[in-house]
């Protein structure tokens, strides 16, 4: 019985993570052929350093992710404050829906809509439009995280700060922001990883000269899977994994402190 349970668990994990493990293992393959193991080697990682196009794509991806995540966190905070604190204003339901719609909107539709908008307004597509697009579609995630944080906060804390002479703005800065700081960090990192991983929306909204890493990987794979692509994918995976771990730690810490 115990054996059977362990087996099921193992199969489940194999189903979920097997492909990723194979990808990571193959990135250390000395052989040029993805199907044949030719011994352990890190030469594909070294080769990456000489691949200027891929390095440039990585740089663009990281810059877009950092910038759009910062914008999305600020906008998400503003939306969450409006939803949590302004009571039942008349268009609250509409606003709530509008903020959170991209959560369930098909990425293709959102990408196409953004593209149409940029074309209609005559925007030159490239880095800036990429940042705008990513901020738009990650903002709903940051707003969800921050709304939950604000709702979990005792409103009398803010009232106490005002009662003690702080203006509403200062009360927010001195009491609310420190209280939701872990959630702010978590929201930023969530938006960062979402932007880093995105292929669909980036394909619609970027232009020549601003190719992101997922786009670069995808275009290379069309010419055949190479160990070099495996290597860059493994790095991307490790990076996202680290960020998610940091985010989880940031969110868990206050909970442990209270216990």
């Amino acid at each position, binding site marked *: 019985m115990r054996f059977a349970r362990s087996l099921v668990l193992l199969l489940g994990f194999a189903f979920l993570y097997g492909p990723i493990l194979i990808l990571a293992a193959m990135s250390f393959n000395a052989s040029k052929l993805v199907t044949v193991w030719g011994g352990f080697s890190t030469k594909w990682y070294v080769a990456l350093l000489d691949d200027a196009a891929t390095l440039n794509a990585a740089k663009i991806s990281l810059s877009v992710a950092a910038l759009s995540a910062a914008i999305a966190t600020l906008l998400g905070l503003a939306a969450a404050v409006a939803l949590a604190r302004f009571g039942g204003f008349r268009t609250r339901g509409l606003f709530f829906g509008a903020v959170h719609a991209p959560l369930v909107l098909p990425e293709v539709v959102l990408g196409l809509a953004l593209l149409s908008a940029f074309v209609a307004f005559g925007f030159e597509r490239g880095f800036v439009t990429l940042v705008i697009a990513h901020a738009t579609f990650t903002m709903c995630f940051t707003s969800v995280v921050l709304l939950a944080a604000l709702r979990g906060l005792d409103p009398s804390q803010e009232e*106490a*700060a005002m*009662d*003690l*002479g702080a203006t509403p703005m*200062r009360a927010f800065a001195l009491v609310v922001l420190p209280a939701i700081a872990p959630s702010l960090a978590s929201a930023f990192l969530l938006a960062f990883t979402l932007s880093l991983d995105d292929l669909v929306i980036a394909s619609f909204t970027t232009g020549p000269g601003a190719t992101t890493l997922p786009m670069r990987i995808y275009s290379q794979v069309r010419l055949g899977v190479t160990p070099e692509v495996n290597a860059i994918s493994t790095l991307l995976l490790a990076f996202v994994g680290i960020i998610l771990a940091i985010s989880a730690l940031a969110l868990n810490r206050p909970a442990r*402190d209270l216990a």
Partner: protein
Amino acid sequence: MPLLSVEHASKRFGAVVALDDVSLTVDSGEFFALLGPSGCGKTTLMRLVAGFETPDSGRVTLAGQDLAGAPPHRRPVNMMFQSYALFPHLNVFDNIAFGLRRQGASRVAIQSRVAELLDIVQMQNLGARRIEQLSGGQRQRVALARALAPGPSLLLLDEPLAALDRKLREEMQFQLKDIQRRLKTSFVIVTHDQDEALALADRIAVMRAGKIEQIGSPPEIYERPASRFVAGFVGATNMIEGFVARDDGGWFVAPFGRLKRADCALRDGARAALSLRPEQIVVARDGEGVPGVVEDIAFRGETTQLRIGVAARQALRVSCTNGNRFSLGEPVRLMIAPDAGVLFAEAE
């Protein structure tokens, strides 16, 4: 001139009337209690004074100044919250210093003022502690110190002792009273606990359903309740339904017998209710008085509570200091003085 004056204040939340034409005054240096069951509007009234709610009509003045339009951070009133609302990211010192920093006090002034407050609430040397390291009683005292720090002319306390266990609560009652007397600051406390209100306050306003039922000193409220609600809410009482008979003086006709009344303004035959405190009934083995049977005995230390059956399905609660002389099922006599208790007309 009173320090705080609330005049004809009304407040509705949608269809719910939280305050209905409430007026009261609080004098300088007074310990005032707002007492009532939950949902009676006492917390709304307090939040009105603090500036977190605005009255639909009526006005609030502090030292003669109309507070209308003044936001909470510009009112010389501080509040101690029921949840304490301490700032978890700041230590004890910084929590208490919060209001002082907003006033722009100098570093030295803040240091000495916080030390003084830590002394008042008996938390010396605990300034560096984090809030989560404090016990419930210590948190309560930090919240009190923080609210007192800016030197408010009026301190509002929202159920300040509700979260403490019984023993600590009684101890803190004395401390609170002591601190208030020393600082000569006006305290307005909101509570649903009548013992707390009676023990602490110079004057009590008993509230029900958004209205003030009675304002008076604790003995006035307890001995001369203005309504049946006040009589029932503050302290234990026997509420006896009956009617008035005016033949040969005043009588109250209860289901279990006629009781002589010293003074009675009600007309003959009027339906009325007599509120009798358990300690206003004298129980004896024999003599004149209402016959009854001991149904239950509860020993409470300094007093003993007896339940005396006086008629079919009617029992009176009697409190006496030597109740353990009696035994269950024993026939007794109840003496009720003509001036004991308060008679209410049925009209309410």
